[in-house]
C-alpha cells in the first residue's frame, strides 16, 4: 500500500513537473510569436521619399508602378507639411525644436502599405530606379533581425521542450518500470495462476493513464492560475511594452487542458506498456 502510493506520487510529480515546464515554455513561445507578429504588422509600410516639386506625371508613374505589385494594400501621398505635423506629434515634449525651423526640410513621400514586409524587396528595388524618387525606406533590416532573433528563441524553446519531453518520458517510464518491477513477483504469480497478458496489463495501463491525467490536472491548475496571476499583476502595473504581447490565459486554457491531458495520459499509458513488456514473458 505504502509502496504503491509513494510511487504513484513520484509518477504524478514527474508528469506535473514536466508539463509545468512545458506550459511555461509554451507560453513564452506563444508570447514571443505574438510580439513578432505584431511587430511585423507595425512595420508593414514602405516610405518612398520624393525629390522636391515633382511633376504630376512622375507621381502618376510611381503610383501606377506600385499599384501593380501583388501584396500592395494601399498607397498614400504624404505631403511635407503632413510629415512635419506627424513629427511634431511624435516628438511631443521636444516639438519646440521644430518650431525654430526656417523652412520645412522634410520631403514629400508616398506611404505604401504591404501585405508582408518580407516580400517587399522587389518592389523597393524597382521603385528606387523610378524618376523622382529620392530614397526608399523600409524596415526590412529591423524585421529581419527580429525574425532571426525570434527564430533563435523559438528554436531554443522547442529544443528545451523536446529535451524535457524526452527526459520526462524517460523518468516516467522508469518510475513505472520500477513500480512494475516492484510488482514483478505479483505479476509472476498472476501469470502462474493462469492470467493472460491482457488481464495483467489492464490495471497497469489504467493506472498509468490515471496517474498521467492527475499529473496533467495538477500542472494545468498550477500553470493556469500561476500564469493568470502573473498576467493580471503585469497588466495592473501597466507594463504595456511587455504584457501587450502576453497571450491571454483564458484563450489558452482549453488548448493547454487538451494538450496536457493527452500528453499526460499518453506518457502514462506508453510508460506502462513499455515497462510491462519485459515482465510479461514469463
Amino acid at each position, binding site marked *: 500500500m505504502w509502496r504503491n502510493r509513494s510511487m504513484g506520487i513520484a509518477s504524478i510529480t514527474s508528469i506535473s513537473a514536466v508539463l509545468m515546464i512545458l506550459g511555461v515554455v509554451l507560453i513564452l513561445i506563444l508570447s514571443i510569436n505574438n510580439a513578432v507578429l505584431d511587430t511585423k504588422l507595425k512595420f508593414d509600410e514602405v516610405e518612398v521619399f520624393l525629390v522636391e516639386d515633382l511633376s504630376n506625371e512622375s507621381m502618376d508613374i510611381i503610383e501606377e508602378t506600385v499599384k501593380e505589385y501583388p501584396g500592395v494594400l494601399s498607397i498614400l501621398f504624404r505631403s511635407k507639411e503632413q510629415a512635419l505635423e506627424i513629427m511634431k506629434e511624435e516628438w511631443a515634449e521636444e516639438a519646440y525644436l521644430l518650431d525654430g525651423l526656417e523652412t520645412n526640410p522634410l520631403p514629400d513621400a508616398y506611404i505604401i502599405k504591404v501585405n508582408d514586409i518580407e516580400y517587399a524587396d522587389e518592389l523597393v528595388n524597382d521603385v528606387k530606379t523610378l524618376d523622382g524618387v529620392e530614397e526608399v525606406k523600409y524596415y526590412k533590416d529591423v524585421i529581419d533581425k527580429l525574425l532571426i532573433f525570434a527564430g533563435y528563441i523559438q528554436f531554443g524553446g522547442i529544443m528545451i521542450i523536446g529535451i524535457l519531453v524526452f527526459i520526462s518520458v524517460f523518468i516516467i517510464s522508469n518510475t513505472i518500470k520500477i513500480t512494475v518491477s516492484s510488482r514483478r513477483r*505479483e505479476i509472476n504469480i498472476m501469470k*502462474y495462476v*493462469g492470467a493472460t497478458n491482457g488481464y495483467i496489463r489492464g490495471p497497469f495501463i489504467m493506472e498509468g493513464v490515471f496517474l498521467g491525467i492527475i499529473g496533467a490536472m495538477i500542472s494545468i491548475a498550477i500553470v493556469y492560475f500561476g500564469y493568470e496571476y502573473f498576467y493580471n499583476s503585469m497588466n495592473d502595473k501597466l507594463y504595456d511594452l511587455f504584457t501587450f504581447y502576453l497571450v491571454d490565459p483564458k484563450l489558452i486554457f482549453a488548448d493547454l487542458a487538451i494538450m496536457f491531458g493527452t500528453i499526460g495520459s499518453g506518457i502514462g499509458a506508453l510508460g506502462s506498456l513499455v515497462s510491462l513488456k519485459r515482465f510479461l514473458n514469463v
Partner: protein
Amino acid sequence: MIKLVNISKEYRNGVTALYDINMEIKKGEFVFLVGSSGAGKSTLIKLLLKEEGISRGKLYLDGMDITRVPNRRIPYIRRKVGVVFQDFRLLPNKTVYENVAFAMEITGSSPREIRRRVPIILSMVNLSRKASSFPDQLSGGEQQRVSIARSIVNNPPVLIADEPTGNLDPDTAGEIMKVLLDINNRGTTIIMATHAREIVNSMKKRVIALEDGRLVRDEEKGGYSIEIPNI
C-alpha cells in the same frame, strides 16, 4: 493425461537438472515425486508449468504437444494445471480470501460463483478464521494452506503440488492429504513432490523417484525409499 518423452533440462548456467526423463501419467492418477534435495523434482514441475523451457524431448498434456507453445497460449495451459508452490507465492497485497478469489476471477467466474465457492474451499483447508488476514500475518503452514486452496478452487484437471506439507505439522498435513485424496477421487490427476516419508509410505500410491536428475524408480503402490515397506 501427461506424457514426457526423453526430456532433458539444462539451466542457462550449465547445470543439467534432468536427464532423459520418460513417464506417462494417466487421468485420475495420484503420483508421488520423491528424491533427495536437488534431485530435480521442482525442475520437472517447472517444465510441466511452462515456467522453464524444455532443452530436449517432448511434453504432452491431454494429448496435445506442449513442448513449445507461443507465450499467449501459456495462460490457458496453466489454467488446466493447478499448482501449490514450495514458496507459496501469495499476492502480498490481497487477503487470504482475495488470493483465492483472484484465481477464479482470472478464469472469468461470476462473482456469485466466487462468493459461493471460496468459503467452501477455505473451510476445507481450515482457514475460515483467517479469511481477511494478509499473507504476512499468517504462519508458514497457514500460507501453505492458502496456496493449496488457491490451486484447487478452479477444479483443475491436473494438480501439481511441490512439498505441500513441508511446513505443516503431521495433523495438519494429514488433513491436507485427505483434501488431496478427496479431489483425486473426484477425478483430478495429482502429482506431488514430497519428502514426507510417512505420508508416501502410508498412502500406497504410485511413486516416481529422481536421483541427480535421472528417473531411478517408477513403482505402483510404492514407498518413499527403495526397501519395500514392511507389510
